[in-house]
């Protein structure tokens, strides 16, 4: 699904992914350092292009390219599976600085809560993905106890309410905008 606007921050902008981003998004998705905790993806550029075309039509599925203020693409981030008052957040792969990464995530939550008017977001991460867990906790995530999924892999589910996010956002803003 396409969000026509630009989500503007001080360090980064988020815009809906376009077909011309296929090569970039595929390169991120195939970078072993960025996708250690994601399923292996062996697809061609044409297949990635087809995925983007489909994604842009998919109801309740938003996928953003993160650009720094020089217009250089530095990552991707998603808000998807929007149902009623809730959405899933994830599909994150970022190569920027700490300011850029944190602001990109903050802009995606602003989109979820302010633009889509959701009440909460959910995230599902591998229990040993410390980076993702710390990131979600920074934004006010309440995490489940680790549990084994159907494949025997340990996972942790997180929920971020709008209220919890707004409390966390105050601290994050102090860090980001000094």
């Amino acid at each position, binding site marked *: 699904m396409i969000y026509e606007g630009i989500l503007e921050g001080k360090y980064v902008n988020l815009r809906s992914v376009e077909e011309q981003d296929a090569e970039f998004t595929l390169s991120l998705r195939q970078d072993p350092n960025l996708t250690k905790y994601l399923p292996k993806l062996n697809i061609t550029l044409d297949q990635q292009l087809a995925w983007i075309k489909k994604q842009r039509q998919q109801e309740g599925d938003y996928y953003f390219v993160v650009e720094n203020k020089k217009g250089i693409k530095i990552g991707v981030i998603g808000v998807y599976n929007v149902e009623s008052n809730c959405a899933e957040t994830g599909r994150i792969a970022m190569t920027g600085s700490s300011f850029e*990464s944190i602001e990109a995530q903050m802009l995606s939550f602003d989109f979820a809560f302010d633009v889509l008017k959701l009440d909460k977001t959910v995230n599902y991460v591998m229990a040993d993905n410390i980076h993702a867990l710390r990131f979600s906790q920074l934004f006010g995530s309440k995490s489940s106890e680790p549990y084994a999924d159907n494949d025997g892999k340990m996972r942790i589910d997180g929920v971020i309410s709008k209220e919890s996010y707004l409390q966390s956002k105050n601290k994050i803003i102090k860090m980001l905008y000094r």
Partner: protein
Amino acid sequence: MTNLEKYNAAFCETLNVEEAQLADLKYQAIPEWDSVGHMSLVAAIEDAFDIMMETDDIIDLSSYAKGKEILKKYEVEI
């Protein structure tokens, strides 16, 4: 506490590392020093030395050693 002790404590407590690991420690070399840990580390250093670092310096803080250089700018000798 000396400045070195304060500086080391900021790293050890924030990033959960031992002093023996500090000399070669670099940003993103360990899971704890990610973008989130980086911000916590900056806050700890600022608290320890009662300073407010500029954005460019926070981004440049790419290693334990680099941090010592940056702090000179704030008149903190390690």
